């Protein structure tokens, strides 16, 4: 697995683990030191350090010209980022909650994503749009969405969703160095914040030096022979927990973390399904017209004969409730994944 690629040969390096937020910040700081064109804009990213710690400590090192708090006008500053990128800078613009994309969607999907094409290739837009995603902490329908499917549907931008600190750092390096627009979605529950405790798993060993993880390379987080679970973000950890529980019953589950939805590594997914014959896709986004349907279709198109059974676990098509028991009911839990894995094997 990728996170074991750590270089510990010297024995001198500290044996450290990082939270996902610290791993992201380390990559951003490294790129900012190497390249004066990299800068960060967003709401509460300077003095506050990002409401989910996405920029913690960067203001002290880089100052207000490069870590910029902006007025609450997503259209203005995301548009400014698109312009700066077209002029050769490498902006990172943060959408505080992905749920807020609506007020700036023209800048995102018509300008950022399409200007390279609309200009006949005379400009490119090397920017990163970061956004906090996800629920599980009772923030209600307008602050809890992932919208993975919404962004992955629209062409012209890549879409990254890390699940561990190791992946978050390597994917962030790759995102900033990419010459085209990248949307980088970080799940709030994985960041390692005191008031929003992460599950075991996202905090991993992280090398001090820079490294990149190429887009379109899914990571098999757990190998197994009986059932393939394909997922991303927070639900990688819920799927791993389900897999551990089922191992006691002799069901051997493989967990594939896609890591990027665009591009999607269909080859790793198809290879896994060719081995197990059973596919469960788990998504925190809405069920209809989304990630689960797309992944299942991409497997079926090329390898229908490999499929003995398919299940999908996703958020029902309702606005996410505020009340804790109701939110827990709609967001897929470890028990829902366990049940789907058992069910998919009953379809042989």
């Amino acid at each position: 697995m990728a996170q074991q690629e750590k270089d510990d040969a010297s024995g001198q390096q500290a044996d450290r683990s990082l939270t996902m937020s610290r791993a992201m910040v380390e990559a951003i700081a490294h790129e900012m030191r190497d390249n004066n064109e990299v800068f960060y804009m967003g709401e509460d990213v300077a003095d506050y350090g990002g409401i989910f710690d996405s920029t913690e400590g960067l203001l002290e090192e880089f100052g207000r010209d490069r870590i910029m708090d902006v007025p609450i006008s997503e259209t203005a500053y995301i548009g400014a980022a698109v312009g700066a990128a077209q002029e050769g800078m490498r902006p990172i613009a943060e959408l505080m909650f992905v749920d807020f994309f609506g007020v700036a969607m023209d800048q995102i999907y018509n300008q950022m994503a399409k200007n390279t094409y609309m200009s006949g290739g005379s400009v490119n837009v090397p920017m990163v749009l970061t956004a906090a995603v996800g629920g599980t902490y009772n923030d209600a329908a307008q602050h809890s969405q992932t919208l993975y499917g919404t962004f992955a549907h629209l062409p012209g931008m890549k879409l990254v969703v890390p699940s561990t600190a190791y992946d978050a750092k390597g994917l962030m390096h790759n995102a900033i160095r990419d010459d085209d627009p990248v949307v980088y979605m970080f799940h709030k529950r994985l960041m390692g914040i005191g008031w929003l405790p992460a599950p075991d798993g996202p905090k991993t060993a992280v090398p001090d030096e820079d490294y990149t993880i190429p887009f379109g390379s899914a990571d098999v987080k757990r190998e197994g022979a009986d059932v393939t679970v394909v997922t991303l973000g927070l639900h990688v950890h819920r799927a791993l927990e389900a897999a551990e529980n089922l191992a006691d019953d002799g069901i051997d589950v493989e967990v594939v973390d896609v890591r990027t939805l665009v591009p999607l590594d269909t080859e790793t997914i198809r290879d896994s399904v060719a081995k197990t014959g059973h596919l469960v896709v788990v998504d925190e986004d809405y069920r209809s017209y989304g990630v689960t349907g797309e992944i299942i279709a991409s497997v079926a198109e090329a390898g229908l004969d490999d499929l003995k059974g398919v299940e999908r676990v996703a958020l029902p098509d309702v606005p996410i409730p505020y009340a804790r028991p109701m939110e827990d009911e709609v967001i897929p839990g470890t028990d829902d994944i366990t049940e789907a894995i058992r069910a998919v094997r009953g379809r042989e």
Partner: protein
Amino acid sequence: MSANDDRVAVETSDRWPDDADETVGVVVNWFAAEGGHVEEGDAICEFQVEKVSVDVPAPATGTLEEIAVGEDEEFKRGDRLAWIRPA
């Protein structure tokens, strides 16, 4: 002299936020594991008091021999969080 006398304690008093009235904190994250190598000055853990996060640097280079207060556990101001055996 017992072997434990050589160990350096990871203290919290000098890292306590100046304006905090609260005398109980909670360890949020450990960045090093028991038995791991730590470098003096590197953040080895993070605790919270009144929603303020504080990084705790390793007081010495060596092996993190014992963690006394684990993640999500509470402690009182002045409690020692861990012991390091200097290299």
